[in-house]
């Protein structure tokens, strides 16, 4: 116990005595820890920002989309979900609410929107009134369209704030008309601002009533609808998922063994998929940069070996004065560990700065988050590196023969 405190004191003294050399020795660890922390903090920041968006979707919501397996896509097939599927779900599945189908009446990508000579391309989706609750849309101005609007095929729309900005539509937008692919719509509501994800605005959309969308798309067009709904009882989530799968397989007349041509996903599942991607990304990037920690450790071992040779005589003196093997071993081991830990500390601060700086510099990138486990890991790793790479030099020092060490010039 006693000798440990003494070893700390003597290690500090020796690090101070060669402060520049100590700094260069730790540089490998500093860079290693700094890059680990910077990378982890940026990936975690990204993950945190996307997770909050998923949480907004609610744990009890399910969505059904058409799904084309890769082999079938290669054969030029494209599976779709039609209106019939929507009706089947509404009539056959109980215990669900807010069934909200949606599709792009002007194609899956976007449509041209015009107002007073200004034009812009935006995402146009035809949705029912249930969309407001299923997707937690909050009107900042006006209102969302009602079931009545849908039933009477009123040509109204609900828009995101970015659309107004793109169309230079200033002043009160309610009651104004915009032209979408030569169809006219009256604005009855504007959504609350939702910001950006990865530089893409989440307020660049136009929503129109489902029935209007159907009329525009016509009867011949093969619609591809995606349907989202909420399950009344969260416990029933998996059961509903199973029933839905069986139902759709039957109506699509899929043979046993044939893959599903649709996908039923819970927001939980989507989040889990996303989480596993982030975890993999953290692991791979962290793994790559932690190689630099290894290099840093080798640097420490190198300098410690030099230091042992340099201080051979000193070790001889200490042994003559009665130092035991463990005194010498501890002294060098603690010195190596302290070098490494100091490097880790500086690296942590540097990595923090780097991560936050970089995420600020990249436009649209969410703020960096440094999780506590990354800090613990950085310290754990750097002390482990110090101990691991300090053992050999320390053992070399401890095993010196006092007579030879005293005679060393």
């Amino acid at each position, binding site marked *: 116990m*006693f*000798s440990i405190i*003494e070893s700390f004191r003597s290690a500090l*003294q*020796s690090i101070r*005595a060669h402060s520049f050399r100590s700094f260069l020795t730790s540089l490998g660890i500093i860079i290693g820890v700094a890059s680990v922390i910077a990378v982890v903090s940026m990936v975690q920041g990204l993950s945190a920002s996307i997770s909050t968006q998923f949480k907004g979707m609610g744990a009890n919501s399910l969505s059904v989309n058409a799904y084309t397996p890769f082999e079938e896509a290669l054969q030029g097939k494209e599976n779709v979900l039609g209106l019939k599927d929507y009706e089947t779900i509404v009539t056959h599945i109980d215990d669900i609410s807010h069934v909200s189908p949606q599709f792009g009446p002007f194609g899956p990508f976007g449509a041209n929107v015009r107002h007073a000579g200004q034009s812009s391309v935006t995402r146009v989706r035809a949705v029912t009134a249930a969309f407001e609750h299923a997707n937690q849309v909050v009107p900042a101005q006006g209102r969302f369209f009602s079931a009545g609007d849908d039933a009477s095929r009123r040509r109204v729309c609900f828009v995101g704030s970015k659309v107004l900005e793109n169309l230079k539509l200033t002043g009160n937008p309610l009651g104004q008309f915009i032209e979408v692919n030569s169809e006219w719509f009256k604005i009855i509501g504007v959504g609350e601002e939702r910001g950006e994800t990865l530089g893409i605005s989440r307020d660049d959309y136009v929503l129109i009533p489902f029935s209007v969308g159907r009329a525009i798309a016509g009867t011949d067009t093969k619609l591809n609808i995606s349907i989202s709904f909420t399950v009344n009882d969260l416990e029933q989530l998996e059961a509903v998922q199973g029933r839905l799968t069986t139902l759709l397989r039957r109506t699509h007349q899929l043979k046993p063994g044939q893959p599903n041509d649709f996908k039923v996903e819970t927001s939980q599942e989507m989040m889990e998929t996303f989480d596993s991607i982030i975890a993999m990304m953290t692991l791979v990037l962290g793994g790559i940069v932690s190689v630099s920690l290894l290099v840093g450790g080798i640097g420490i071992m190198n300098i410690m070996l030099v230091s042992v040779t340099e201080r051979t*005589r*000193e070790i*001889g*003196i*200490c*042994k*003559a*004065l*009665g*130092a*035991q*093997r463990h*005194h010498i071993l501890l002294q060098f081991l603690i010195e190596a560990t302290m070098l490494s830990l100091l490097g880790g500390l500086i690296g942590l601060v540097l990595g923090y700065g780097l991560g936050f700086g970089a995420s600020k510099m990249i436009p649209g990138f969410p703020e960096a988050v440094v999780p506590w486990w990354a800090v613990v890991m950085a310290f754990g790793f750097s002390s482990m590196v110090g101990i691991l790479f300090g053992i050999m030099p320390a053992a070399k020092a401890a095993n010196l023969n*006092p*007579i030879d060490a*005293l005679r060393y010039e």
Partner: protein
Amino acid sequence: MSQAEPLIRLEGIAKHYQMGGEMIAALNGIDLQVMRNDYIAFIGSSGSGKSTMMNIVGCLDTPTHGKYYLNGHDVAGMSESDLARTRNEEIGFIFQSFNLLTRATALQNVMQPLIYRGVRPAERARRAKEALARVGLENRQGHLPNQLSGGQRQRVAIARALCSEPSILLADEPTGNLDSTTAADIMALFDTLHSEGQTVIVVTHEPDIAAHCRRSVRLHDGRVQSDVINPARLREVASV
């Protein structure tokens, strides 16, 4: 332990080295006894075996054959860590080239052996200051070795040796790196320590230095060639 029991008892000590396939006998059957408060010189030319003798007596090395009893303990069969403990408790080394820790102050140097004994810091400092005062360096505590003269450095080394209250002060050519005036001062210090009851062993090749001692053991080819009481000290011996 009776007063008659010698502090050091060497019985048939031999040390052999393997050197390039050839066996070299550095020591070849040494029998020797050193009593408490003795003041003894090991003299001999280079290659006589006196360095090996000092290493074995100082517990830095173990003999190939023979028995070594130090303060009643059998040293010859000790493990490395027991040897280290024995060095710490029984031996105070003084070297020709001082062997101070260059980055530590005089006080820290003197405290060093007490660290290995597990003495508390406050007690350590108190004893080290006391030892520095004994060698007349109480006002040099905070100096680094390179801020001290050769004689002062050797005094720090002596204080370091004294500080752990060893049974034996073991000095290896203690005046070899000093001018004659300073050397005389250092030897006078040894004389004083001896008169205060300290057992002192000096390893040297200089007859002048050996003349300070009560007893001279001359080594030659790994054997004791002569073991005499210093004539100049005879009267003093008679009074003991």
